[in-house]
């Protein structure tokens, strides 16, 4: 969690639910870069991505009352709101027409885009992290986490049996967990 010195997550949620302006400003400062990165994983158009980012924070703000810490972490909840708005944008008719070809390219060039993102983030000195995830696992996580595909869709898309996808997905997440544990 970036810069979680000012508030604990529980404090932050409480303040947000009280519509505290400072808490929102803090929330934005902490998470906007991460959420913008999530959007840019799928949308290459930066202007459009900023629109989606703004829309995401509006939705987070308006829906904060429905956030339940028992059901998951705040950041994950925010990522999912952002991810879903991004997918809605990609799937909206007008955008589909315009970006049909580009989306295919995005899927292909994602690993490159993430490299750029990482560099930008590292340059800010906010976080240093070595990506230890292998390429196959990375592709699975990206398709599920950023592009919002179900395991069945991923199986069809990659022409890999569903059972294989399921087991690979679990080991990919296990790998991610190990990275975090090693770091700690």
């Amino acid at each position, binding site marked *: 969690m970036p810069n979680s010195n000012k508030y604990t997550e529980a404090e932050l949620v409480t303040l947000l639910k009280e519509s505290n302006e400072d808490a929102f400003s803090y929330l934005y400062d902490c998470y906007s870069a991460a959420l*913008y990165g999530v959007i840019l994983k799928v949308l290459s158009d930066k202007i459009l991505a900023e629109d989606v980012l703004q829309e995401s924070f509006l939705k987070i703000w308006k829906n904060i009352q429905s956030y339940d810490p028992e059901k998951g972490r705040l950041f994950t909840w925010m990522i999912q709101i952002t991810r879903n708005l991004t997918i809605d944008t990609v799937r909206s008719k007008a955008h589909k027409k315009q970006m049909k070809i580009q989306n295919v390219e995005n899927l292909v060039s994602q690993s490159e885009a993430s490299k750029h993102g990482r560099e930008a983030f590292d340059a800010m000195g906010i976080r240093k992290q070595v990506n230890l995830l292998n390429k196959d696992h990375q592709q699975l996580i990206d398709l599920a986490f950023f592009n919002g595909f179900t395991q069945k869709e991923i199986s069809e898309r990659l022409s890999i049996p569903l059972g294989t996808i399921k087991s690979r*997905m679990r080991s990919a997440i296990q790998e991610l967990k190990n990275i975090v544990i090693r770091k700690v």
Partner: protein
Amino acid sequence: MKKEEFILSGLLEQYALGAVTPEESVIVESFLSQYPDLKKELDLIEVALENYALQNAQIPDSSVKQKLMVNLFSDKNTEEQHSNNAKIGGSSSAVAPVVIENKIHSFYKMASAAMLVLLIGSIAFGYYFYNQNEDTRNKLDLVQQSLDEQQKRNIFLTDNLNIVTDKYTQNVVMKGTPQSPDAIAKIFWMKNTGQVYVDFMNLPAPPSGKQYQLWAIIDGKPVDAGMISSEKAAYSIQKMKSFGKADAFAITLENSGGSPTPTMSEMVVISEM
């Protein structure tokens, strides 16, 4: 479903990825509320995924935050927001108006800018092509005019040629008289129809007030065969009166309009009798 089955199903991971159906998420949430260790496991998975997401972080333009803060906290909005928040809870529909309005706004801005550029462009093009078109049309008119003239002339010359080369045409040469030795004129006399044409190209231009008159000499008497136009074209022959028979032809210079009898002293050319 037992806890072990649930763990093996991979639903918890899918839940963290946001890839479960509403029915599945009900199942996951019921397990989470029953087993605190599953909640801990979920936290671990979520932290792992959050970390992964952070690797792609990019700083957005500062204008995004400015817009958001204005949108949410400029004095009028704040109170509305409070009441909205209390009311809507989980509903997402309340977000839409603000955002859509913004999008439409910037869309229209962009669209109108694009339209303006297009408009100016099309006016410039229109003006350019209008000029071009006018120019072309003028040129075309000139060409058409000249073509018409050429065509007329062509028909005229073809007619002349047909007369001159007709198998029935008899050529009669009229030579200069002693007072105008250089003058020469020709008669093309179509013997089948009696039509008489005169080629007066080699006659000197008549003085003003004067006009050439053609005469046919029949049985020793001059008969008026018509006045010769004073206008000279590049090459032309002129149709005169018709004669079935004539012994000779002569041209005299007369006062404009002609004379009933030839002025013998002004005779310029005459054919052999």
